[in-house]
């Protein structure tokens, strides 16, 4: 340590050693992280208890009973079905639409850039407020969309208030809000692809559809996968749009995981069941986000390698 004294400051100040520095820098963020982990583990404990806010005296550990109950609980299977249907439909449509729009806007022209900026607007709308907007537009009395549906001959089309069409309606709202997100990711991906393969294909006179299937799609796959997984993780947890639009109704047509857990907690005050539902949703998203992160790391490695 003797060489370090050369040119040392005259006054000794409090100094953080090099080894401690990263910990000191990330400590505040870590503390917040621990603050989040505590409620997380509490939720794990709740999920193993018979716990109703209305019957605090009957609170006790029943271990896996909440989970076992799900096996014979029709409303749980309905929740699972509704959540999966919602996620697959929304993400599927968003992917196809997003890819289509990204391909339409692929060329860097003034007009295309203008349109892609306009498409940011739905994405910048809070999903809960987007649901309210669509609620106003689908109002059976004065809603413009109800009017359109009527004039097209769909006189008994009741949008979100009919169990038959409620799912379709909220999926449309989800598509409206989030397609631009997929579009932006894919547009960024498309515009970052190397040009040589396309030029070579053009020189050889390869048909356009063949170029799309054999060059564009494979090179775009990492972006597609990321976009889909990202949206999948979020839409299986959808709450804002559904709650703001129908509060899970009509009946149990739209009781997705988080809505069902919310209703269980605040209406039936069944904390144990609510926590168990959240644990199952967490397991699903954990599985999905692991695929997401692996794919994302691979993509990052590749980009690092290229630059």
């Amino acid at each position, binding site marked *: 340590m003797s060489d370090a004294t050369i040119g040392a400051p005259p006054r000794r100040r409090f100094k953080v050693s090099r080894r401690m520095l990263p910990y000191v820098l990330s400590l505040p963020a*870590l503390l*917040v992280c621990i603050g989040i982990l505590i409620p997380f583990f509490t939720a794990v404990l709740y999920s193993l208890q018979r716990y109703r806010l209305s019957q605090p005296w009957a609170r006790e550990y029943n271990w896996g009973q909440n989970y076992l109950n799900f096996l014979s609980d029709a409303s749980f299977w309905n929740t699972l079905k509704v959540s999966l249907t919602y996620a697959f439909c929304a993400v599927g449509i968003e992917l196809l639409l997003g890819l289509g729009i990204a391909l339409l806007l692929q060329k860097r022209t003034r007009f295309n850039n203008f349109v892609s900026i306009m498409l940011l*607007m739905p994405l910048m709308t809070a999903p*809960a407020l987007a649901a309210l907007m669509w609620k106003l537009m689908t*109002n059976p009395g*004065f809603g413009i969309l109800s009017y359109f549906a009527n004039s097209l001959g769909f006189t008994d089309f009741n949008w979100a208030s009919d169990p038959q069409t409620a799912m379709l309606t909220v999926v449309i709202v989800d598509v409206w809000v989030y397609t631009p997100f997929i579009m932006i*990711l894919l547009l960024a991906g498309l515009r970052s692809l190397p040009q040589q393969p396309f030029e070579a294909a053009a020189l050889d006179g390869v048909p356009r559809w063949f170029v799309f299937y054999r060059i564009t799609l494979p090179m775009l796959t990492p972006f597609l996968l990321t976009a889909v997984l990202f949206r999948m993780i979020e839409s299986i947890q959808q709450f804002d749009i559904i709650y703001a639009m129908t509060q899970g109704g009509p009946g149990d047509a739209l009781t997705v995981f988080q809505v069902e857990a919310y209703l269980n907690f605040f209406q039936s005050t069944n904390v144990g069941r609510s926590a168990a539902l959240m644990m199952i949703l*967490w397991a699903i998203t954990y599985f999905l986000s692991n695929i997401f992160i692996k794919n994302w790391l691979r993509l990052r490695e590749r980009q690092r390698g290229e630059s």
Partner: protein
Amino acid sequence: MNTTSPLETVLRGIAITLVILFFMFPIFWIILMSFQTNATILQVPPSVFFEPTLQNYRGLITGQLVTDTSSLEIRFMGNLFNSLFLSTASVAVGLILGVPAAYAFARLKFRGSEDIAFTLLSFRFAPPLLVLLPLTIYFQQIGLANTYGGLIWVYQLIVLPLILWIVRGYFEDIPADIEYAYRIAGHRWWTTFRKIALPLAGPGIAAAALLAFIFAWNNFIFALVLASADKQPVTVGALAFITASGVQYGQIAAGIILSIAPTFALALYAQRYLVEGLSLGAVKG
């Protein structure tokens, strides 16, 4: 690229028109509604020609909701203020906590750094209610229920991972050599961080802050579960407002427009950063 046939040009034109129609029409229509009285809104068939009125906006701003039969106090401006305050404060806290941590994760490899970074990222994916439901009980016990402080802390769940991952990516893209050179010239670590690393990552920090602000502003579930009326942001307030005001549809529309205007303005002002931030946050890191 190749030559385009006239047919293709026409088809492209139709497709783009449909896209613009689908994505822009709801916003256009709600703006129209916000300038209408209930009488013109309820007209069938709907018409785009009407006498525009500012009474909906006036009602929201003065807090006096005048229906045909009565007058009602509403706190919409209070909701708007809550949104502004919660989002700004959350982003400020997120930056203070997140930027140094992001720097540590990018530059200083240390034991467990990847694991910690991943744990923080994983909060981005966890179902919000998983954490929120136990928190409602805890918040009651420790007196954080319905306080700005408690909400700002919970908002870190969205803000912090976003800032951490976008800013980290930016720090990693800055060549470390510049910092080494500056340090060899005899400067302290802290000076180097302040004078070299922070300014170079400036655009990334700005993009992350913007995006975090918008995500915080748009959030619904945290405040729905943890805040009561006087602390609610517009996303939750607007929903309560519908049930309270009953049939004043023009005012609901005006409320929606006022609540989404700030994020639209930000998006227009900083679209380049924002698009970059969005694709970075999701794809690159």
